[in-house]
């Protein structure tokens, strides 16, 4: 074989130019997303498509259950074909919105401010949404969905995180979160307890401490200073010993309860209703300490490619019958007061003319006392000043909790 010795400079030159192009790409690459920043002034023609990010059960088109469908008639009326991506956590939803590839999202209170702050969503012109006027006052212009009186979204509904248990194995019926937080009580179910796999769950620990350890001085589970956060983390670390599996994906929680791998823990009403409909032995309650909850808002992306379809969706999702269907299907309180009329509730997937009382839709009994998911920030909002822990601290802490 001929000896072909290449000149060393050739390869070196290749490598250098390759690295140079990397530096070039790095230096010139990646522009920031531009900010629309303004609300629509009028709705034009539907663009034919709509890409949504939603919580499970919020955008049903008959594929989960043929009788549960509030998308098909929207598509027929407006010509906007709906593509939905289910998000499992607020963090996921924020990240998906940041890609700019979606038109809208059903954001909970712990995502909304992050999206507004990051310029990922535009303000909403509620005059263009006729059904908006029927929304409960308690949902309008809240700190989590508006800035200086300007709405940044359309309320979808609100509800509580529940305590769910396997009625065959867990006796007596628990009425307090101590069954998952108190080391003695929850050790009875060691290896079969579950919790929501997200830093926001720290607020649930905070709520428990608020009621059981008053000398910690917690007044709001989202406003925890360092000492209070440490206490919450310790509580959660103790809980970790009894946890069998955390759930971030609601389907995993459903299958864990159905398998008998999980016996007790926090859940959304949706999982409870699904398990119950399948004949599984489950019970649920809002324990005596109260609970955390969520109030969800439909928001429009600042990079929405189909803004008209999004506004048409805003109005559609607020239609009384749609609101009644959603509320019954997911197990939450609707945002539109008109949805509580019996004629709409009778037609839902789980017909119940008392649905609105049960779920306290007007927010008089317990909804207003729920601690809705919100992003923890350093400003405590009281005379402690700026010493509260931020969501970043919570994310850190959550890694520590899981160990």
């Amino acid at each position, binding site marked *: 074989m001929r000896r072909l010795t290449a000149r060393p400079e050739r390869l070196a030159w290749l490598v250098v130019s390759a690295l140079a192009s990397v530096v070039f790409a790095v230096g010139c690459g990646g522009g920031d997303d531009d900010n629309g920043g303004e609300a629509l002034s009028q709705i034009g023609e539907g663009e034919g498509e709509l890409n949504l990010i939603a919580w499970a059960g919020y955008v049903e088109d008959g594929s989960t259950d043929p009788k549960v469908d509030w998308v098909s008639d929207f598509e027929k009326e407006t010509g906007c074909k709906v593509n939905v991506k289910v998000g499992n956590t607020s963090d996921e939803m924020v*990240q998906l919105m940041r890609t700019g590839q979606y038109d809208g999202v059903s954001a909970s209170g712990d995502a909304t401010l992050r999206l507004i702050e990051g310029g990922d969503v535009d303000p909403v012109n509620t005059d263009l949404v006729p059904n908006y006027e029927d929304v409960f006052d308690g949902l309008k212009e809240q700190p989590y969905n508006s800035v200086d009186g300007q709405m940044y979204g359309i309320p979808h509904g609100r509800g509580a995180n529940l305590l769910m248990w396997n009625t065959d194995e867990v006796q007596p019926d628990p009425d307090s979160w101590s069954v998952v937080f108190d080391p003695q009580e929850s050790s009875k179910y060691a290896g079969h307890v579950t919790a929501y796999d997200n830093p926001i769950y720290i607020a649930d620990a905070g709520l428990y401490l608020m009621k059981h350890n008053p000398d910690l001085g917690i007044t709001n589970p989202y406003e925890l200073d360092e000492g209070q956060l440490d206490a919450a983390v310790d509580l959660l670390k103790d809980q970790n010993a009894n946890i069998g599996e955390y759930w971030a994906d609601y389907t995993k929680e459903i299958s864990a309860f159905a398998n008998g791998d999980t016996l007790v823990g926090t859940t959304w009403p949706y999982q409870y209703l699904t398990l119950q409909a399948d004949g599984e032995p489950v019970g649920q309650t809002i324990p005596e300490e109260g609970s955390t909850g969520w109030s969800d808002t439909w928001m429009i992306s600042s990079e929405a490619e189909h803004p008209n379809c999004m506004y048409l969706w805003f109005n559609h999702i607020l239609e009384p019958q749609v609101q009644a269907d959603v509320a019954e299907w997911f197990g939450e309180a609707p945002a539109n007061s008109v949805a509580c009329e019996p004629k709409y509730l009778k037609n839902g997937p789980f017909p119940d003319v008392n649905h609105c009382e049960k779920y306290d839709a007007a927010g008089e009994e317990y909804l207003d006392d729920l601690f809705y998911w919100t992003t923890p*920030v350093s400003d405590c909002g009281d005379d402690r000043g700026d010493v509260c822990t931020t969501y970043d601290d919570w994310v850190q802490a959550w890694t520590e909790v899981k160990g």
Partner: protein
Amino acid sequence: MGRRLAGLFHGRPGLQVGGLLAGPVGWLVVGYLGSLAILLLTSFWTLGELSGEIEKTYNPANFSLDNFKQIAEEPVYRSIAGRTILIAALVTVTDAILAFPIAFYMAKVASPRTRSVLVVSVLLPLWSGYLVKVYTWRTIMSGGGVLSWAGVGAPTDDMVRVWLVMTYLWLPYMIIPIYAGLERISDSLLSASEDLGGHPRTTFRRVIVPLVFPAVVAGSIFTFSLTLGDFITPLLVSKTQFIGNVVYSNFSNDLPLAAAFSTVPVVVMVVYLLVARRLGAFEHL
């Protein structure tokens, strides 16, 4: 046209090599190494407080070491890294031990036909559904699954579960290099050892093991590397966090932190690869 190009390349071996390598090297250096460089760059970035958006900066003066400080100072990251490395080592050792009998049989004892069948049997599951296999173990170990039906009961300790599943997953990656390494040991060496009065156990200890060791190291590159980065197995069969899980769960919220933490497995693997190369493992890959 071809001849004119040929004329251009003729006698210019450098150009020939350059032409051949431009594509692959360009891709790997710019695309892959460049990406690793960017990952490192990302680890020096921070997040805006309320928005949580990444604040990018290309000016080294503005680089922040916060992420590295965080993973160095917070004990949980150290324990997670330690746990991952420990399991990686355990899995490697277990797989080496499990792989040996079958590799030896295949290389030295089996008839050619049997050997061929065995090789195929070990090869087939190699890339057949990694995620599927983890899921299968998850079902086997669930309440009501095979293990509890068989009366054995699934292991409950998280570390044991992860160790067991990973041992299973990476076993073929260890069998093949060891088999290849054993095959290369000439039979005459083994007979010579016998002739010199060596008991089979001595032959094993003093002839076979040293000669096959580089092959074992080669196989261990995979078992170690695959364990170091895996997040799916810990996620599906346990509730513990490994390095991969921390990177995975932080990657959407806090990419800079995830990037910083992922330098740990890179450093470990680069060191491991350099040591392995020195031990001659690369000849057995």
